[in-house]
């Protein structure tokens, strides 16, 4: 029963990793930007929500509903104002820009909010659960996160395959010049992609914040999980990201079942194994 519990909890944890990795996957897929500030953005979202909760006294769910679109707008602006300029100078420039952004964000957060550890108090929702049987309880929050991760991925998938904007997005990612020739404004399209990525990272950040805790320095340690989920799942495939997140979550959970010292190591080993033996990832996307 312990093993079954480990798999179930790992699966739910994987949902969180997948949700967190979606934005990274999307930004790399569309613009080839490796966003090193990804983890820090999640933390910024958490602090923003915290400030809104304590500042306005609104209930947490309202704040969540406000924060996510706010982040989408922020994402669009970041792309147009900051990232677009660096894109033309090659991948290294964008990497450095996002790295710089990461440091700036961490230090601004430290200055404004101090180094105290915080959490978002999700009340009974965050700590409540239902029991499958005596030894397996499933938390509402974990389950909601998992469902949300699937919903977000299905949503993005539908958006990419069914809508005009989604098609333009895919076209721009395949061949920016040609897409521009036939009338796609790649800057706008990229802005949209970043907006979606920021919205998902905000969502993931808030879920993380309710589940555990955050401080200004948490970002980079979270980023590694997102990288691993993307690489394990396969580059360029959104479903791969979901699978990657789940594989990572379940591996960590099973690892800790064998020996708690193995928890993080097990995840890293699977990551290494995938890189060595199946570098295209478990579900390969289209390759260039």
């Amino acid at each position, binding site marked *: 029963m312990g093993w079954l519990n480990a798999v179930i909890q790992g699966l739910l944890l994987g949902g969180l990793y997948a949700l967190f990795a979606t934005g990274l996957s999307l930004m790399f897929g569309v613009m080839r930007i490796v966003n090193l500030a990804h983890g820090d953005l999640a933390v910024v979202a958490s602090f923003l929500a915290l400030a809104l909760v304590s500042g306005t006294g609104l209930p947490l769910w309202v704040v969540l509903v406000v924060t996510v679109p706010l982040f989408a707008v922020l994402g669009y602006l970041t792309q147009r104002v900051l990232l677009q300029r660096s894109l033309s100078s090659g991948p290294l420039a964008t990497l450095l820009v996002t790295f710089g952004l990461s*440091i700036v964000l961490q230090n601004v957060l430290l200055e404004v909010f101090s180094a105290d550890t915080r959490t978002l108090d999700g009340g009974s929702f965050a700590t409540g659960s239902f029991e499958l049987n005596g030894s397996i309880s499933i938390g509402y929050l974990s389950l909601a996160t998992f469902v949300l991760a699937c919903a977000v991925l299905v949503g*993005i998938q539908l958006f990419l395959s069914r809508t005009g904007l989604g098609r333009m997005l895919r076209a721009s990612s395949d061949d920016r010049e040609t897409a521009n020739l036939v009338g796609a404004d790649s800057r706008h399209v990229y802005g949209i992609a970043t907006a979606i990525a920021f919205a998902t990272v905000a969502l993931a950040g808030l879920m993380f914040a309710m589940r555990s805790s955050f401080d200004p320095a948490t970002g980079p340690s979270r980023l590694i999980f997102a990288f691993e989920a993307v690489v394990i799942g396969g580059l360029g495939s959104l479903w791969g990201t979901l699978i990657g997140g789940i594989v990572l979550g379940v591996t960590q959970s099973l690892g800790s079942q064998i020996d708690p010292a193995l928890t993080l190591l097990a995840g890293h080993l699977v990551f290494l194994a995938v890189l060595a033996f199946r570098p295209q990832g478990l579900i390969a996307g289209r390759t260039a």
Partner: protein
Amino acid sequence: MSDASIGGMGRRSFLSAVGLGAAALGGGSLLSACGGLKGTGGSSSDVLKIGYVSPQTGPLAGFATADNFVVKQIQEAVRSGFTAGGKKRTIEIIVKDTQSNSNRATEVTRQLINSDKVDLIVGSSTPDTTNPVADQCEANGIPNVTTIAPWEAWFHGRNGKSGEGFKYTTLFFFGMREFADCFFPMWERMDVSNKNVAALWPNDTDANAFREGLGPMMKEAGYTPIDGGAYQNGTTDFSAQIAKFKESDAELFTCTPIPPDFQTFWKQAQQQGFRPKLATVAKVMLFPSEAEALGTLTDNIATDFWWSPAHPYKSILDGKSAQQLADDFAAETGKQWTQALGSVYSLFEIAIQAFKEAGDPKDRDEVAAKLRGMKISCMSGDLDFTAGPEPGIAIQHPVGGQWRKGEKFPWDVVIVDNTPNKAVPIGGDLRPTNG
């Protein structure tokens, strides 16, 4: 493969980018480095320089909340100087930040010794700070006193020779015996059906000291530690540990995790139905900010208190009481007191006392000898560096306190068990953590 594919990215380009990213992440700590605050004063020989090393930023920053306030208090208390070695002396305090990183602690200590040419170094909070700082001081022959680290981690972690100790480095705090003396009486007062104690001990210096030290003491006292296993700090999921604890039916709980991990664990434990009758935690829930972060789940978590405004202690510098110090801190910063307030204050009391006692306060060997032989009655109570478990260690006796809803601040500490130190008045009853 699927039409969810978004873009023709080459594997190589991604991997090289990731590689660069990883390198960039690794370099972060270098770039974010920054210097410390400088105290007042010149560099004439009548000025005694004290270097102070603590984690002012990063995950351990909670320990250093009161630093600036304490430095100011000390500077005010000895503003008019004091006589040491037949001359009037003033002090200069140079503050350095470890950024919660032990390598950086080594680096800034070296700076204090080589560039700032300090006469004495004090340091506080967790073995990650105290050990590298003390190692540097011992190697360079600089008198040193540190605090807020279990003495075992400080002494054995630095390969101290039993019965001999170190020449230049001293510590005041407590160890596993005192944790046991603080926690066990509270456990005994709880009405529990078995003597299993769930123990969440990660794989780090602090927790390994608990595993090897407190574990056997628990067995001696008739308790069975249910060790959740040596997990790595930064773990996001504690299902395996929680399942193990539930299986054991343990109703008592103790732990030594890093603060963010405790928040994660405690929420998950609640979620997955592990609700111990009494939680006596170490290393976490020491500060109001943590209590606030955990929200309603904070209620009646018990931990060790080596200093509180209720402790009947006074400053040796200006006679200020613990209560006054806490009140001044609240008035000046708007923040609630922390235990580190009293400890950091005492670091400077001890340093100044050693200067006063020495025939020549610039003679490092003599000042170090005074530190090792120090008996002082200060903000941290009566400390005797000659009577500790090893030479150069003074022992404090923490009492048990619980977090309750406060009046002025959201959470307040109530001292509920003073078995180890009867001088501290009891403030309320011991209540179950999960009633």
